[in-house]
């Protein structure tokens, strides 16, 4: 049965060894950083592409962010997502309430224009602000069932069987579509974009909507780096032959 799938992603800096803040402590200093989407969301994009390959239908990627977030939409389209929607902002922070409201509005506008989704996917949480709630709020507003933290999805006859990991094993749920699912990395191993895919994505049109910012009630004052405890590293050796020294460390820590 063909299905319409929507994947919501967020543009985040590709941080590496250390985070540096801007002087006003409002943002991460991204002068030397690239941008990407959260790892969980990469898996959501891959899953959407696979679903359409298997079941037919169409896939759409949506993001709320500045004009530059077009890059992330095109990355998703290079992997096989067909359509893209940019909820364009002026770059300021949108908290989870405001973000969810803008996404709900876009989904409802789509529905009024004759496009409705069988499945809306999110990452379990964004890599940066990690509010752990946008997907749940969107599901609530649209009156759809929602399962978070998913690591396996099977679609059959208008139902989704999902699995998620717990501390002691796995748990499963079955929901009828339409539904909202938030996923975690490990759901699949995302593919790399092909060159033809990239070229095709470049030419695709992006639908733009300018949502109204609202005060959602959670407002960033400033960012700060956690305090690092004073720390000393003991260099045990600079060659391969440190077996005895390591065994001594293991014994000291009572591991041997």
């Amino acid at each position, binding site marked *: 049965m063909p299905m319409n799938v929507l994947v919501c992603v967020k543009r985040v800096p590709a*941080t*590496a060894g*250390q985070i540096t803040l801007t002087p006003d402590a409002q943002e*991460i200093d991204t002068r030397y950083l690239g941008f990407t989407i*959260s*790892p969980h969301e990469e898996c959501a994009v891959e899953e959407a592409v696979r679903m359409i390959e298997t079941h037919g239908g169409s896939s759409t990627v949506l993001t709320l962010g500045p004009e530059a977030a077009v890059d992330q939409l095109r990355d998703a389209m290079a992997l096989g997502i067909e359509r893209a929607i940019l909820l364009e902002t002026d770059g300021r922070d949108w*908290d*989870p*309430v405001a973000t969810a409201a803008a996404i709900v509005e876009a989904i409802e506008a789509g529905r009024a224009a004759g496009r409705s989704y069988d499945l809306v996917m999110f990452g379990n*949480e964004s*890599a*940066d602000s*990690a509010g*752990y*709630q946008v997907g*749940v*709020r969107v599901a*609530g507003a649209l009156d759809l*069932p*929602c*399962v*978070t*933290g998913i690591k396996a999805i099977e679609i059959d006859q208008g139902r989704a069987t999902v699995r*998620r990991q717990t*501390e002691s*094993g*796995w*748990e*499963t*749920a079955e929901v*009828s579509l339409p539904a909202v699912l938030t996923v975690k*990395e*490990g759901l699949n191993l995302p593919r790399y974009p092909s060159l033809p895919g990239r070229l095709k994505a470049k030419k695709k049109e992006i639908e733009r909507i300018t949502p109204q910012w609202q*005060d959602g*009630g*959670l*407002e*960033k*004052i*400033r*960012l*700060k*780096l*956690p305090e690092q405890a004073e*720390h000393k*590293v*003991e*260099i045990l*050796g*600079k060659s*391969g*032959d440190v*077996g*005895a020294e*390591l*065994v001594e460390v*293991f014994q000291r820590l*009572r*591991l*041997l």
Partner: protein
Amino acid sequence: MVLAVIEHVDGAPTMLSLEVLTMAARLARNMGVPLDAVAIGPKGAAARGILTSYQVGKLHLADDRRLAEYAPAAWAHTIAELADRVNPKVVIGTASDRGGEVMAHVAARMTLPLAANCTEIVPGDPFIVTRQRWGGSLLEEAHLKGAVKLLTLAPHALTAEASPNRTEVATQTFAPVLDDKDFRVRLIPQVEADSGKISLAQARVVIGGGRGVGSTEGFATLEELADLLGGAVGCSRVVTSLGWRPHSDQVGQTGTRIAPELYIACGISGAIQHMVGCRAAKHILAINTDPAAPIVAQADYAVIGDVQKVLSAVNAEIRRAKSGHKRMATEAPTA
């Protein structure tokens, strides 16, 4: 009143719930209001005993047999309905997978903001909270508004502290009016056969491999060391992306958080997303060819060298030590 949402296993509150109770008791004291708790799920009443040590005045229990199963929307409906009845100023829960999920549903249902993964909470109007971003590698100070302040507490933001002064805990049972709709999602546990392997999260020693391990086959020396030390093998995100190891082995922000006595990071550079996953390790040993790799500066012990050479040497040395033979003075270093 401050309302603490208790996660429990057959009436035994989880460690994260005891941390929530500790924070909730402090908040209640600062605000000069009583502390109540709510426990949903089978045998919630059994939590009462422990709550006497956490300044709780009243334990609320929900009377609906359907709540025996975990249905996130139904549990959230129950908490939201209780909040309507008892008018708390604050509802605070754990930031565990379930705790965070339930509080997100509560927030959606009550159309209130929610601050997730808080490490510090300063009451006032609005509240000033400190919360974790990037898995805790970055903190955010934020204003939290709302008629009821909704919060989850980051794991291990503080140490759970039972009070020596015990309180009398009253219990009150209420019957929430739940819809069938609240049970559209029910999570059913799957019992799996014990594989006999030591889990990453529980292991006393974890040997993690990164790009520097070189290949899928390169992990054989890590597996051998894990066997010798009774530990588990983990890996960095780059390794799972390359397909060398399954995602279940991944340590980090989007993988498993580990807390071993010793974490041996082999050929791992130490990106912040990885360090978030091993921050709770008591000791870190880094084996890396690059002395400037970020992991080296954050380790307690480091060996600057090739992973395969170092591990072969240490594996041989452990085998020798285990077989009871002393290392002979005539065995001169070969490298």
